[in-house]
């Protein structure tokens, strides 16, 4: 029954969306068509969906592992930003040195740089929790703002393009740093394939290896984990480092694949949206992939709603919220089966 919960939640969200369109004076059918059907239109639509789904898949995979292990990493957005910064730094270095490096080689290096940046950022959370029992929820969330300020400092200061009319942005990265694309004329790139491979790898890790198994005992049954002799510390560190690395990779690919330069606007909310994806996907790698497509449909639908029928794109945020809220509601109602007390 709980496996069905995301489907019920999605249905509730669609109904609420329809009502909301009607309330805003728009035709609900047209509104829903823009949100749910238009994003799938044509090769361009589908590839754009895949492009948006890529970071969501990568980040939600790591978060699923964290949450299964009872480590509440809420700051994937920050780890994503730092991954963007380290990936961007690599691209800047290559650009400035004018290195002739094959795209595939740079792709691999960018992945490594992003992973290192994201993992380093997440390691702060792990250290503070391990050493001082600081709540990982608060620390990881606060670090999102620190990461954003760090990015702002870099693009407003040392990394600003001197020939950029004082705009807060870096130079455009060299063509060699561009993530290899999958189809001619489409923005979808090799990052998407990487995300799908990561999902397969995560599935194998979670369900076919002892290390993955160990991480999933401490969440539902901490006493059983102590009984078995699984280290809670190593679970904390490995889940945070791994999810930080995945978010960092997503950030590096976003910067080098889609943006082509660093601006103060790398923060796009993927890190937060991925939390919803992880829960909609039942913390399961396959669910994460499906959930990422659902949420990217919302994201693109929001943009389309803005351009086609003049609705604020914040609407997609509202729908994300409704989706998470109804999902948690469904879970609670299904699991605890409340009954109304009859007055006697």
């Amino acid at each position: 029954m709980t496996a069905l919960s995301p489907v019920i939640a999605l249905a509730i969200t669609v109904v609420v969306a329809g009502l909301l369109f009607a309330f805003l004076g728009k035709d609900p059918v047209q509104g829903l068509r823009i949100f749910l059907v238009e994003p799938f239109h044509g090769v361009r639509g589908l590839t754009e969906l895949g492009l948006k789904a890529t970071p969501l898949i990568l980040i939600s995979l790591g978060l699923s592992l964290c949450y299964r292990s009872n480590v509440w990493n809420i700051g994937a957005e920050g780890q994503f930003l730092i991954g963007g910064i380290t990936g961007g730094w690599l691209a800047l270095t290559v650009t400035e040195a004018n290195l002739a490096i094959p795209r595939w080689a740079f792709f691999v290096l960018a992945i490594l740089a992003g992973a290192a940046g994201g993992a380093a950022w997440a390691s702060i959370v792990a250290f503070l929790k391990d050493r001082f029992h600081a709540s990982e929820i608060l620390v990881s969330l606060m670090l999102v703002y620190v990461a954003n300020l760090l990015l702002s400092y870099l693009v407003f200061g040392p990394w600003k393009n001197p020939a950029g009319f004082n705009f807060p942005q870096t130079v455009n990265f060299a063509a060699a740093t561009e993530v290899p694309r999958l189809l001619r004329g489409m923005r979808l790139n090799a990052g998407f394939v990487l995300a799908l491979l990561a999902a397969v790898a995560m599935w194998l890790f979670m369900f076919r290896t002892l290390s993955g198994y160990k991480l999933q005992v401490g969440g539902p049954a901490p006493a059983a984990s102590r009984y078995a002799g699984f280290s809670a510390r190593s679970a904390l560190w490995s889940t945070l480092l791994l999810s930080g690395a995945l978010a960092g990779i997503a950030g590096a690919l976003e910067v080098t694949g889609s943006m082509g330069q660093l601006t103060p606007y790398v923060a796009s909310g993927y890190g937060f949206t991925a939390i919803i994806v992880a829960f909609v996907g039942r913390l399961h790698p396959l669910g994460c992939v499906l959930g990422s497509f659902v949420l990217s449909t919302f994201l693109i639908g929001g943009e389309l709603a803005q351009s086609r029928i003049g609705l604020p794109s914040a609407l997609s945020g509202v729908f994300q919220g409704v989706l998470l809220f109804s999902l948690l509601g469904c879970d609670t109602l299904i699991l605890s089966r409340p009954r109304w007390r009859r007055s006697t």
Partner: protein
Amino acid sequence: MPTFRTGGEGLESVTPPRLQLEHITKRYGTVVANDDVSLTVEPGEIHSVLGENGAGKSTLMKIIYGAVRPDAGVIRWNGEVVHVRSPHEARALGIAMVFQHFSLFDTLTVAENVWLGLSREHTLQSVTEGMKRKADEYGLELDPARPVHTLSVGERQRVEIVRALLAEPQLLILDEPTSVLTPQAVDRLFVTLRQLASTGCSILYISHKLDEIRSLCHQCTALRSGKVTGTCDPTVATTASLSRLMIGAEPPRLVHRETRPGAVALEVRDLRLERIDRFGVSLDGVSLALREGEILGIAGVSGNGQQELLAALSGEDLRAGPSALRLFGKDIGRTGAGERRRNGLHFVPEERLGRGAVPAHTLASNLLLTRRESVRTLGWIDRTALGRQTSAIIGRFGVKASGPAAVARSLSGGNLQKYIVGREIDAAPRVLVVAQPTWGVDVGASAQIRGELLALRDAGCAVLVVSEELEELFEVADRLHVIAKGRLSPSISTQVATRELIGEWMSGLWPTQPVAVNGGSP
């Protein structure tokens, strides 16, 4: 002794029976849990319902308590036909129940837990006072201000009993109430129950302990596979005849062989551990030596340091000094649980769900907590081998489960216990530490588990059994220690020890010098 009606056939009652079940039938799918069950409980009668796990006792009690609706049959309460639709209605009628699985919230205090279940006109203050009064009246030790998570299983049960008594019930249902009490406490409980019965309260007493039933109950109904196999007067019945009613045979006898203890396998030297929370028990200079090829029992009422000692032995609590614990001559005081297991020390904890097994995981998955046979290079899990291994344990220990993919939570307590004990016995450990090996397990399976423990001993394994069931300890152990208030008594051979002596030791009164009683070391 209170007078009571025997409830035999043909007896003309002036007052109607307290409870009459007529032809109760309940099916779950194709399984018939209760098949045409009838029984009569008179006012003031202590009526035993005897049967193994899965015989249908629990379903029958749930029907009386309104938690389950029967498919057919009639319930009469004081002569009137009633339809008990919910536990709430059952309580309104005057039926109280103490479950085997407690329903207490860990984070709340004892009094708050009880208060929560009462109607709103009671204040916490009045509940606290009421509990203290009831506890005193029946000689039950209880501190209403303690948080429930600090209580042992035995103490939790006491809370449930007092909670039930607060409702001033006309019928009290008790499900296996003595499994966690000392002999003296059992005697006290029986005094309590007889006292309660003499005031006219009827008691339904669910148990598989035949000698208890014979000493306490006035009437007995035996169930097997959902059917009534007979009723009898347990005061005149023999243990053998009760056993035949219950399982269709006499309980299997354990074959005891001469012990030949070998070298010391596990040694505890002057273990001192400060309690972790203020309701815990500090271990105060515990020393023991467990030899290969012997079973050492530790008796004691729950909450006297057993949990603390076991956590230190298993490696879950690593605060002991490095050399306070020695395994085969090596210091293991600072060695983690996984490493101790790799060195041959296996442990069966008291809590099955959440500690011995992850409730939401499958049985196969739970095997990985302590077993590594199906893990290949680089930590790759061979699912086929894992499934085979799980099936083998399920088969060997007669665990009732749909298969390796069954979720741990879906098993009954006794079945999960069989699986967990089986998992550790099957590992062929060199040292096995077991807490409450047969808690809630039926007679046949208990005998099997005890038999397996003896077989392990005969194969040279050193076995430490911590149990609150004295019969069990006398049955399997070669030597006994008693733990009381965090201190450990000298050991005494079970050949020499008596129940009365052990009972005395349980209150902390043992000779300070280990004189002639130290019968273990040759």
